[in-house]
């Protein structure tokens, strides 16, 4: 008797919960979308304290199904009935996927059903945000053996202090580094109705494609690979910003995999403070800097134009401790710079790219347009820029015949500065011309890349400071540095 009453009570309580939905949402609601495989998308208001079972009871009738015929998929996991909504790492306007459970599994309830339940008990019904922890993602994922050790470590640590996973992303909407959330979709059809067969264990699993297999719940017509089954269905991981309301499934963010929580209280390489989060360089030592020092490092290198134009990675930096093979692969890390600094980074990167590709930069002050020129042609016109026509070799106004040698000696000898101003150019910006004279009289161009170079002391042996050039030349001869230079005018 009491059992019946209890059951009734329970039922009424639940009904009440469902009915009082409208009232509850006013105080503390989460508005999300539930996408059904048939194509319908429902907008649902949720109370974060609900569990998935409550959600199914709300959603199923709207889809014309019974609550136990529906499974809810989120971030690569089928969520178990007892999971609380607030545990799921959901944000406003997040999208959940509702899938009708295939009938096959329903019939042999005794065998198959119990098996599935057992399987689900092993964490698989919990959302990814609950099962992943930081220790997995705090190591370089070089060898599998270390990954196993990591796993053991994380398990022993787990009992004492298991910290939920932290991801950092660059969010294009917020234009800042934000904390991020990991999401999963089908590699082929990009559908979010996708469950992973195993969880990612490290950054390698997440960033490299086709590492983790899963089941795509999308209808066969939509996911061709389910239909033809030529390849196992792979999971694709992507990231979202966790700080602004989701703008839909396209609203991704770039994972900044080098930025990690400072689990071991490693002091910063530069300032020796213990900060959190930190940037861990991709060198074997895993050198750590705090984010302020990372910015300072970037600014210092950027001002000196010492970023490296890497053929595959782009304009990037290596570990400040000078470790080999430590280039930052994800250049979005440089988004930690201010907008103005990042714009400078982009400009320098573009210029270096142009120079590396054999192009030239327009020498007109204030222009600097990158121009790719045919190898044999020395007459260059700045077509989409300022229109200046110049000689590719000496970067002076275009001329017929040999380039006029720069008259440095007359400049340094005479106080009056006998620089000859081309009459036509004299009419142009005087201020720029003045600074050009200063640059010309105090610098000489690197014989290889023509970067104006100033000598502020020391010997005549010059090494071009432009990253990637490093040409060794003689200040006196303006030719490559030779033994003769060393013998006759090394020190002047």
């Amino acid at each position, binding site marked *: 008797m009491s059992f019946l009453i209890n059951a009734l009570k329970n039922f009424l309580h639940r009904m009440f919960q469902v009915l009082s939905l409208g009232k509850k949402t006013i105080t503390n609601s989460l508005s999300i979308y539930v996408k059904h495989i048939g194509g319908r998308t429902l907008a649902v208001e949720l109370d974060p304290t609900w569990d998935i079972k409550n959600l199914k009871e709300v959603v199923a009738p709207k889809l014309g199904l019974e609550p136990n015929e529906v499974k809810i998929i989120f971030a690569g996991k089928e969520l178990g009935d007892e999971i609380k909504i607030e545990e799921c790492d959901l944000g406003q306007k997040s999208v959940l996927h509702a899938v009708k459970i295939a009938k096959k599994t329903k019939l042999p309830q005794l065998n198959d059903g119990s098996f599935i339940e057992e399987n689900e008990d092993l964490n698989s019904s919990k959302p990814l945000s609950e099962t992943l922890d930081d220790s997995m993602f705090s190591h370089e994922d070089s060898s599998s053996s270390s990954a196993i050790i990591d796993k053991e470590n994380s398990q022993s640590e787990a009992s004492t202090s298991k910290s939920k996973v932290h991801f950092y992303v660059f969010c294009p909407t917020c234009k800042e580094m934000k904390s991020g959330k990991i999401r999963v979709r089908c590699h082929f059809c990009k559908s979010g109705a996708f469950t992973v067969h195993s969880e990612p264990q490290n950054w390698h699993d997440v960033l490299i494609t086709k590492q983790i297999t899963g089941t795509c719940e999308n209808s066969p017509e939509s996911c061709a690979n389910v239909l033809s089954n030529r390849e196992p269905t792979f999971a694709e991981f992507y990231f979202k910003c966790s700080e602004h309301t989701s703008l839909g499934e396209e609203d991704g963010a770039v994972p900044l995999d080098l930025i990690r929580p400072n689990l071991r209280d490693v002091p910063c390489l*530069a300032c020796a403070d213990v900060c959190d989060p930190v940037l861990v360089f991709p060198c074997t030592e895993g*050198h750590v800097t705090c984010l302020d*020092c990372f910015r300072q490092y970037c600014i*210092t290198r950027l001002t000196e134009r010492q970023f490296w134009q890497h053929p595959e990675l782009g304009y990037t930096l290596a570990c*400040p401790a*000078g470790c080999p093979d430590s280039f930052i692969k994800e250049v979005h890390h440089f988004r930690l710079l201010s907008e103005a600094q990042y714009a400078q980074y982009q400009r320098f990167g573009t210029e270096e790219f142009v120079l590396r590709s054999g192009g030239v930069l327009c020498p007109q002050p204030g222009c600097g347009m990158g121009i790719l020129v045919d190898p044999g042609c020395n007459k260059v016109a700045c077509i989409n820029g300022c229109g200046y026509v110049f000689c590719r070799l000496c970067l002076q106004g275009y001329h017929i015949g040999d380039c006029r040698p720069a008259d440095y000696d007359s400049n340094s000898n005479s106080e009056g500065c006998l620089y000859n101003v081309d009459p036509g150019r004299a009419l142009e910006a005087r201020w720029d011309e003045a600074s050009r004279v200063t640059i010309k009289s105090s610098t000489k161009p690197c014989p290889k890349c023509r970067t104006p170079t100033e000598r502020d*002391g020391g010997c005549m042996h010059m090494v071009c400071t432009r990253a990637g050039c490093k040409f060794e030349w003689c200040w006196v001869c303006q030719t490559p540095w030779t033994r003769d230079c060393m013998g006759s005018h090394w*020190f002047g």
Partner: protein
Amino acid sequence: MANIAAQRIKREFKEVIKSEEVAKCAIKLELLNDSYTELKGEIAGPPDTPYEGGNFVLEIRVPETYPFNPPKVRFITKIWHPNISSVTGAICLDILKDQWAAAMTLRTVLLSLQALLSAAEPDDPQDAVVARQYKENLEMFKLTAKHWTNVYAGGPFVNSDCDDKIKRLIDMGIEEHQARVALSSYNWVLERATEQLFS
């Protein structure tokens, strides 16, 4: 000055003060201003070198971009060494140039300079005259370096022959240091030094 540089120097200063090298009097570091941009370093000449017994004072300037750029270091004490300019005290050492890494500290710089005193690299010289002497007449180089250490760094080895020759030039109206440079450069041959000074 950027806060990072000052903060870092503050820590490094403590590191040096507490180090065992300071306890053994091998290196010394002093702050010259409150903003941690200028320091005075001192290193002891390593044993079994011509610099033994001498104390060499260094000027250390910390750039705003420290530790991402190296500190600017120069010898204040005059020294006869292939990698250090006998005129300006400028140092030719890779870690003070392109081989600098942010993980290095003032302590490692001072120790590296001490190591440079025990092992010169004449093939990558800062002072061509000294380097040539080092390669062509090592004994003469050692004698000269010892003499300079005695005169400028308080080293114990007095060389009366050198002192006499310098005195002869001083009597001719030549300034003492100028006389020493000329004699050092011409392997202490008085005639050649005189010739060069009066040519």
